[in-house]
């Protein structure tokens, strides 16, 4: 079973994601901000991180850089209520970007895509 780590400072969002993603058959871990993201990833060993951008105590784009410094191949999906962050050049380091919505169809599609993504080793 694939594990999704949801990092979002809004409790109701975390709970919504947990409920819907668990229904899809994913194992879900939750974090309320990006502080100590390294330890959190070590502890949870997620297959995908769903990362909010605008959080009270941290900026998702900075957290993304922190993740990339150590876990280069770990898929990260940026998730924000603000589409404007999509055009921030730093978001290029994410695997995907989803504008937050109560309908999680797009997020689920992206999770499934990043889990399927495969680049074979050269022969």
């Amino acid at each position, binding site marked *: 079973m694939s594990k999704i780590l949801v990092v979002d400072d809004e409790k109701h969002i975390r709970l919504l994601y947990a409920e819907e993603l668990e229904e899809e058959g994913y194992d879900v871990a939750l974090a309320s901000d990006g502080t100590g993201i390294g330890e959190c990833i070590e502890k949870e060993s997620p297959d995908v991180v769903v990362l909010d951008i605008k959080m009270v105590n941290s900026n998702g784009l900075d957290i993304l850089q922190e993740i*990339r410094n150590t876990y280069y191949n770990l898929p990260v999906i940026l998730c924000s209520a603000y589409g404007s962050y999509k055009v921030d*050049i730093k978001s290029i380091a994410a695997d995907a970007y989803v504008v937050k919505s109560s309908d999680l169809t797009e997020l689920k599609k992206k999770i499934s895509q990043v889990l399927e993504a495969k*680049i074979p080793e050269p022969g």
Partner: protein
Amino acid sequence: MKAYEENPDGIKKADIVVGIPSYNEADLIAYPTQQAALGLKEYFGNMDSVIINCDNNSTDGTRDVFMNADTGAIPKMYISTPEGVKGKGNNFRNLFKKVVELEARAIVVVDADLKSITPRWIKNLGEPLFNDFGYVTPLYVRHKYDGTITNNIAYPFTRCLYGRRVRQPIGGDFGFSGRLAELYTRSKLWDEDVSLFGIDIWMTTVAMNEGIPICQTFMGRPKVHKPKDPASDLGPMFRQVVGTIFKLMDEYHEHWEKTRWSKPTAIFGFGLGEVEMPPPVTVTKEKLYEKFRKGFSTYWDIYKVIFSGESLQKIREIASLDMDRFEMPTAVWAKILFDFALCSKKQTVDIDKAIDALIPLYYGMTLSFVNKTEGMSIQQAEEFLEDMCQVFEETKPYLVDRWDQA
């Protein structure tokens, strides 16, 4: 091909080399040369370095301007193809051989017509090569109408094929390791198109497929070089870039057929602060439309051979749109490119004729891109391009399903 060489300082070894390929760039080459020297001095001052101008025997005095450019203590070398031998790729081949001979660990290449290069570009392209990366491509802001071959073909196509998101696969400014230079010199995949403008996409594709660690590096400043109207300045570059993409597809089909979706490429040099915006690029929509319409009639018989009935019907429908409503849906464009790639494999039409027939459709796609992004900022156009890439990836099974039957 015997290269002509001038090495006034008798350089026999270098840790880092900056290469500047050129053909008739006397007006502009001094600036990137001086900036490269400042970059080498400031960021790689403890290493042996040299700047090499790899030229196509320019007749406008490029050699003299380069050799006389003030580079302080940084030595210079001039290498040229023999008289009559042109091609950017041929210049690179001379560079590959020379850097292998010099046992260089890192090579940075920058365009000779660059107006926005700073010493930091040398650091940004060179430093990752001393940090386990073997190939470095630039990340800079370009005007939405600059680099239309990149935006409409090279980036979405190579990304969907090989699964690597390299935003500027033919950016012209690169970094590569000495080991990769050696691999390039030994490669059997070299051909006529590669020796010309196919070189950039060839280098990127080979690096992607040979397991070379690749990164993209933020340059901070936009790429500002000799401006080109996408409607006017297509030239042979299109044929050579596209021809090289098609030929390499055949070589690496086992790899791309197994690749699904895409992944981001490592980023080096986050946090450069404010990103400067590039100057505008003019595009003449009327010319794009006229060239599309004219070519569409000329090559109709070739389209009938290359496309399925369904695609043919769709393209005919698109051709009936007037200029301001002109739109080429991305899925249709992706299938057009895939059908041409299949044609290149099957050789149902002579490849040169096929690429000639693709050019008007490319003009159509460029017009469609302009119409769609006209009111958008550069960043919004970038987001639009991201969506285009997603459609290419979703449409890829069309190609995979047909490739082995072709």
